[in-house]
């Protein structure tokens, strides 16, 4: 497939080389495409701090959060877009634009031709209408759009593809760790392995429902002795996270079986070790972009109890690769089922690992991108290469 893209330049455009999920994906994907012989390149647009504050607001609004967006914000976005349109070099045969920040570059499509694809990495299932309508006026000028989950798509006059994100099985967060490393991390955080461990790994964010996780754990504890680890970090751009952490600590009280761990950024090996040491992984989110922590857990063949939100139902096929829940009592019930039926839990975990192997590893992601680029020249539903 890669050979069929020979001679074409894939120009990836986003707003930053470092930090954030998009930069992380591109930093892995661009070299891998290169190794397959595809000429993939990566450029970033320019923008002032004010511009990025506006796009952050757009980001939150598209996620469905309440944001005050003024006419001045839209103006600033358009001004910066115009500047980039004038200064930015567009040389690709396929111009692959990631997320809303550079979306406006597409106005040069009429002049340049080429194939244009907009890659949406965020959950736009319930967006702020004003921002979505503003953004949509650019999106519909593309040849195709790509979303991470079916629920993120909208009725658009252009082709829309589903390409889920993926995990890298060789990264620190997902590679197999020696038992000594796992023991060392548990030792560091003072977690004994005397009873089953239930773990949720996520930021201290209301959307991850950490208090709900503790409530479900306390319901389980009435009949089964076990531990809870809530491991996560706080984000500097999220003023709420400290507040959430304080609430979680208060809710946990002095229960010695609840371990609230504030993990510093970049501690991938530690996250890996905590997941590997766990009996069950929970992801009781109220909302998720995609929820790749579920894939990380399933790749370690761990039984998972997760909420049916965002991209989680793609990863957890209920009763086949994990259990889906819709509330605190449902989560507690699923946890009890798994703790009391380790063979069933093991079967779900093994199925989950296979599910990730075939559907959520970076190799599948890479193949989907190749198919996407090839499909741009083939409008039909059946493409013969």
């Amino acid at each position, binding site marked *: 497939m890669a050979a069929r893209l020979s001679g074409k330049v894939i120009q990836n455009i986003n707003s930053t080389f470092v930090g954030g999920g998009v930069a992380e994906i591109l930093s892995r994907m661009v070299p891998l495409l290169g190794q397959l012989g595809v000429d993939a390149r990566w450029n970033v647009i320019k923008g002032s701090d004010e511009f990025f504050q506006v796009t952050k607001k757009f980001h939150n609004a598209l996620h469905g959060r309440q944001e005050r967006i003024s006419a001045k914000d839209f103006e600033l976005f358009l001004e910066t877009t115009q500047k980039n349109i004038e200064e930015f070099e567009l040389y690709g045969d396929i111009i692959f634009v990631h997320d809303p920040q550079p979306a406006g570059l597409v106005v040069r499509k009429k002049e340049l031709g080429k194939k244009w694809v907009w890659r949406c990495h965020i959950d736009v299932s319930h967006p702020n209408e004003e921002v979505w309508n503003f953004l949509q006026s650019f999106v519909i000028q593309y040849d195709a759009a790509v979303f991470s989950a079916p629920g993120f798509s909208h009725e658009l006059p252009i082709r829309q593809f589903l390409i889920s994100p993926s995990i890298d099985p060789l990264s620190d967060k997902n590679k197999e760790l020696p038992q000594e490393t796992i023991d060392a991390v548990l030792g560091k955080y003072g977690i004994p392995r005397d009873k089953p461990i239930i773990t949720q790994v996520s930021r201290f964010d209301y959307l991850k429902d950490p208090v709900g996780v503790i409530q479900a754990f306390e319901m389980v504890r009435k009949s089964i002795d076990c531990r809870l680890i809530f491991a996560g970090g706080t984000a500097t751009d999220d003023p709420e996270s400290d507040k959430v952490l304080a609430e979680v600590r208060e809710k946990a009280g002095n229960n010695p079986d609840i371990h609230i761990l504030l993990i510093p950024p970049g501690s991938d090996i530690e996250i890996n070790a905590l997941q590997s040491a766990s009996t069950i992984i929970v992801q009781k989110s109220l909302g998720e972009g995609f929820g790749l922590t579920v894939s990380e857990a399933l790749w370690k063949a761990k039984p998972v109890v997760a909420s049916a939100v965002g991209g989680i139902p793609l990863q957890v096929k209920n009763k086949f690769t994990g259990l889906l829940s819709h509330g605190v009592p449902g989560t507690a019930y699923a946890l009890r089922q798994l703790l009391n039926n380790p063979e069933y839990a093991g079967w779900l975990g093994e199925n989950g690992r296979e599910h990730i192997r075939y559907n959520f590893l970076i190799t599948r992601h890479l193949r989907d991108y190749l198919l996407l680029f090839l*499909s741009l020249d083939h409008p039909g539903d059946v493409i013969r290469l």
Partner: protein
Amino acid sequence: MIQWLTDNWLKIAIPVLAFLACFVVGLWVRRVVDKAFERWRARTKWEGSQLIAKATRRPFLHWFLLLGAFIAIQVSALPPESKSIGAKVIGSLFVLSLGWLVIILSEQLLKLYLPKVKATQPTITLAVNVIRVIIVVVGVLMVLQIWGVPTSPILILIVVVLLAAALALRDAAPNLFAGFQLGATQQIKVGDYVKLETGEEGYVADISWNNTHIRVLDESTIIVPNSRLLQRTVINYGHPLKNAKEPFHFHSRTHLTELTGLKAKNLRELADVLKKVPDTVIYHHTHHFLEQHHYLTPEPSNDFAVWVTDALGDEALGEGLTSVDTFAFPNLEALRERLVGIVEEHLSKGSNFREVMPGREFHFAKSVSVILPTPYVAHDLREFAEALRKISLGSLYFHIFESRLRLSRGLNDFSIWIKDSLGETELGEEIARLDPYTYTLEGLRSTLIQLIEKRIK
């Protein structure tokens, strides 16, 4: 002169008589030997006997003439030096005649037998030349020995040359001998289907003096040194099976999911959208789980059944949609009608007007199939079974599921080829009767291989 003849007639007559006597004896002996040889030929029916009889007839008489000349010289009144020289000349002529006969005979026998062991023309020429050189060298050495020339240095030189040659050909020699052995024993012949210890397999296309050429599934050729073929375990399945009119070219398939942007939050919307979406949407939601969850037994149901059960909580309808036998439908339109019919029948009973929670809507998608060639090609059932072991699950999926419903061929590709191109109607129909939806893809692969291997046996 007359006086000299009168005085020495006895000295002349005795050698002449001796020579003539030998000639007569020679003729008589040749006749006796011819008859004895004739009887032996009739008894053994050896095809080489004719060659020996023809080749030796004239030299045999020459040898008696040489014997006569030798006796005549020895009984003559010639001086001893002349007798000695005469003996050496006659000895040399005998060696040359004998050598010539051995060369002729060995050449004819090699040309008779090497083709029977499938030796190629270059191999025969090489063998004939080797024999010629050996006999000429031995003959020259014997003649030199007769004339009293020291042969030891020449022998040493020959040994050195032979050692150098052996050293240069140390890699080729085992293959050469193995080639002779393969030909002589007929363990592996051109046209046999063989499987090597390393896993490669295919038909033997050629056995040369040093290598064996095996044509494998992707139509490339593996060249195996003959010696390796003898040293390793090789399974020889024997001769080719019936060749297909047209070879089967395996393709593979992968897909990209295209979103339609359409969604349903209740059964009414599900039925309405189902009626208007393209066939490819129906195909996607009733098939994609086969690939996505091919490792699971039992596999999850079609997407409609899963959504109705999990998101709407309607287990009765979920069961109804799960039990739709996709295999029973000749095309996607008929399948769509059945699905819509089940949902509408359920609605008509007033059973379920619930709406799902926000975020749990059914999102309609379709598959964009990308069909790719693979290197695997089968010309007969044996190659076909072997290719089935090697192809990807995507390839198996394409030829079994996609070709039947999505490409509207009515039958899977394998059955079509086996029936039409191989003429194996019974096997083709047996495969067509398999319900692939009740197998995992790996289970389906094993079942197909078993059916084909049973037929081969």
